[in-house]
């Protein structure tokens, strides 16, 4: 487990356009720069928002990453819910789900 470096990877990616270019062109080289487990590397290769959320990535870092990946808003919220359904509750940090998975926006209930 290396949640610190998992978050640091995403922090660098979110704020640095050269890291974003590397992510698109040579992801493995970028992953090699961080001390990450195989599970974490795979989650980053696949853009697995649900697993990253459950692993405890800070929600703000994860939200910016989802935006970078071009994921639509309600899809992004659903990916976190699906992550919990598949892997169980959030394991670290202060971004746990507390609402039982329901939607708190009328707009989201329509989708």
């Amino acid at each position, binding site marked *: 487990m290396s949640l610190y470096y998992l978050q640091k990877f995403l922090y660098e990616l*979110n*704020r640095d356009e050269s890291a974003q270019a590397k992510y698109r062109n040579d992801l493995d080289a970028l992953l090699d720069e961080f001390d990450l487990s195989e599970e974490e590397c795979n989650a980053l290769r696949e853009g697995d928002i649900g697993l990253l959320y459950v692993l405890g990535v800070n929600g703000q870092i994860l939200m910016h990453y989802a935006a970078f990946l071009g994921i639509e808003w309600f899809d992004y919220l659903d990916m976190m819910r699906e992550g919990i359904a598949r892997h169980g509750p959030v394991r670290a940090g*202060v971004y746990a*789900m*507390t609402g039982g998975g329901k939607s708190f926006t009328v707009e989201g209930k329509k989708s």
Partner: protein
Amino acid sequence: MSMVYAGVLSHAPGITGRANLVENTARRDEFYAKLDVQRQEIEDSGAEALIVIAAEHFANFFMNNMPAYCIGIGNEYEGPIEDPEWLKIPKTKIPGAADLGTRLTREVMKTVDVAYAEEWKFDHGIMVPLHFLTPKYDLPIIPVNINCQGPPLTPLHRAWAFGEALRRACDSVSEKIAVVGTGGISHWPATPDSGKINEQWDREFLDRLMRNDKEALLNYDDIETYRDAGQGGFEIRTFIAIAAAARGAGELQFYTAELPIFAVGCTVAKFSLEDAA
């Protein structure tokens, strides 16, 4: 005195980024109109620079070296770091105020050990306020950060002390300075609970804030805030710093919990600036 305006406002990224998804468009437009009133008030104050006390979301500061407080002393900034299509704010350059920021930092340091930074990338926490308050990006900005994201977080009484120090610093220079604090009250952003708002908690907090009741404001603790107001509630530090800087009572110009798609109780308020007792 040279602090000429003090106010608070929300900064959630949905305020610009998800404007097109809003169902209650009348309420949304009322909120935008109140933000424009705030823009006009800042302009009418004659402010030559705007300090934005923000609670950033890992645009510059990370757990490798996390300052509790930081002041920007750069000549120029850039933002947003987020995908501009997602935030609906184009990437742009924002003028800074290096000399003024440095003088303010020197004065704040007399009572608070603040960090400073010549480089700073703005995320939605600053870009959303600027989008409404200085839409032409023609007012020099001094960014200030209070760490509300990576615990351990600065205690509330230190946020108060920081606000006091900032006021003293502003009053020590000849330039006219406006200051806004931007944060959420209760909210659970960037979780599946996005849109959850504890309106009762918000209204109680806003009552304490508008009365500028120091004792009541500093009476919150983070365990209770997390339970009742979510991790987003940690951002009350920015509002508390503004209350300390202003010293006077607040005037709540707008609040609604009816725009959950923005994922926060949307707030606009200004404060009366009082001399030191």
